[in-house]
């Protein structure tokens, strides 16, 4: 799973969000390191929807502009959980080899 995908799913794991909300949340989660733009975000959402990991939730109009909310599906939650386990396992191995085990990380 690529980092933008991981971060989008992480953003949606807290609850349904609209496009700009996801962009803002991803920047906050990554501490400003990853800044998604509209093209990248909607290409990723398009793929995630096609893979059944994300679905449209509700729509609203704010200041004359359409806002569509997205939420993570059960499939998306399962994929994210699998990815978290994988990253955690890898990180644990890396930490132990670096002698950082025991909460030094």
């Amino acid at each position, binding site marked *: 799973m690529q980092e933008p995908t991981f971060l989008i799913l992480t953003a949606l794991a807290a609850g349904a969000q609209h496009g700009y909300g996801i962009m803002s949340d991803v920047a906050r989660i990554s501490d400003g390191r990853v800044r998604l733009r509209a093209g*990248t975000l*909607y290409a990723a959402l398009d793929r995630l929807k096609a893979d059944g990991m994300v679905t449209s939730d509700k729509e609203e109009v704010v200041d004359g*502009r359409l806002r569509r909310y997205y939420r993570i599906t059960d499939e998306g939650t399962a994929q994210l959980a699998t990815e978290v386990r994988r990253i955690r396992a890898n990180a644990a191995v890396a930490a132990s080899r670096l002698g950082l085990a025991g909460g030094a990380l």
Partner: protein
Amino acid sequence: MTWTAELEGRPGGLPARRRTRMERRYRRLLTLYPKAHRREHAEEMIGVLFAAADYDARVRAPRPVAWALRSGQHLADCADLVAGAARIRGRLLAHRVKQAARSSWIVRDQRWSDALAVISVIAPVLLLVAALAEFHLPQAVASSLTGHPHWRLTTTLGLSDLPLAAGAPAVAVLAFLRLRRLAGLGALAAATGQALLAQDGAAVQRPASPFAGPFAGWASPVVAFTVLLACTAAAALLLSPGPARGLALLTRGGATLIGAGALILGGFSVGGNVWLDTRSGFTQGLGSGMTGLPGDLLIAAVLVTVAVGCLRAPVSRRVLALLAIPVIPYAILWQEKLAGDLFGQAGGASASIASSLPLLYLPPLLLAIVIVAGTWLSRRRATRQGRPASPAGPRSAVSA
């Protein structure tokens, strides 16, 4: 709380004129996206783009720096829109290619698809038998094994023989290795090569051929038969699920009939009389009339038996219609042989229907058109009536 919270309430934002210009540019770039995506997400994306641009516009910085920052972000957003469109279109294209590779090219009508699958087993076998008989390969093998002087390779292989001599075994091997598409393309290449090189072959092998004229090579029933058989094999291999499905559909009786039929047809027809060849010494006492006529009658019996056997099930009736395409020139070859055997070579020519380009190719072409048009019409009628064009046939639909 979002990362824009710190800017909330701060004055600024984009001036109206700049906003209009930017929106026009975004909308132009959004035309790069697929129509369905644009319809669903265009307004939403413009909203997100302006939300991000408003955030950038509120950042406090000296004027030239703020201008450079805004312009840079706008350019980056535009480039990202183009990249996003390319990603979505690329994924759509990959999906379509994958779908096309998986399902397209296969005839949708279940019965015709099954009939073509059966043909994808029969046609490569017949093609191989035709090549073996045409180039007297069984005689050559028998000669090498027994040392018999009469059973030897009598045909000198030339360039014009290459498509059939190399293509037929290759198609048969690929078909039975379940490499359906590759076998289909091989059959197509063999048919094309045979058709293109037929002229050279006619000039070399039959300098005084009765089929004179610029298309003398194509007016030979042997060439017409092998070209049409290779074309039928190619269509069957490329447009059906292939030999795996064909073998599953064939009953034991059908398989036996095909095997025996191919053996008899190969032994008696295209490449000459393998089994009752007068030169073999085996039948020298029988005389030429006796050696030709039983073969002719046996061929007719095989063809009639196959035809009658095929009339029993809907799929095998379709198999018969498809097999008739290459068999038409074969029948012309057979009646020429029959007339020759009955009346001798001199009288046979006047007693038989002479081969010609229209006679060899027009009936198979018309038959193919009738099959395609008939299938299309029945499918259209079924669609209008709201029922499936052809129900799935039983597992063993071909019984002979």
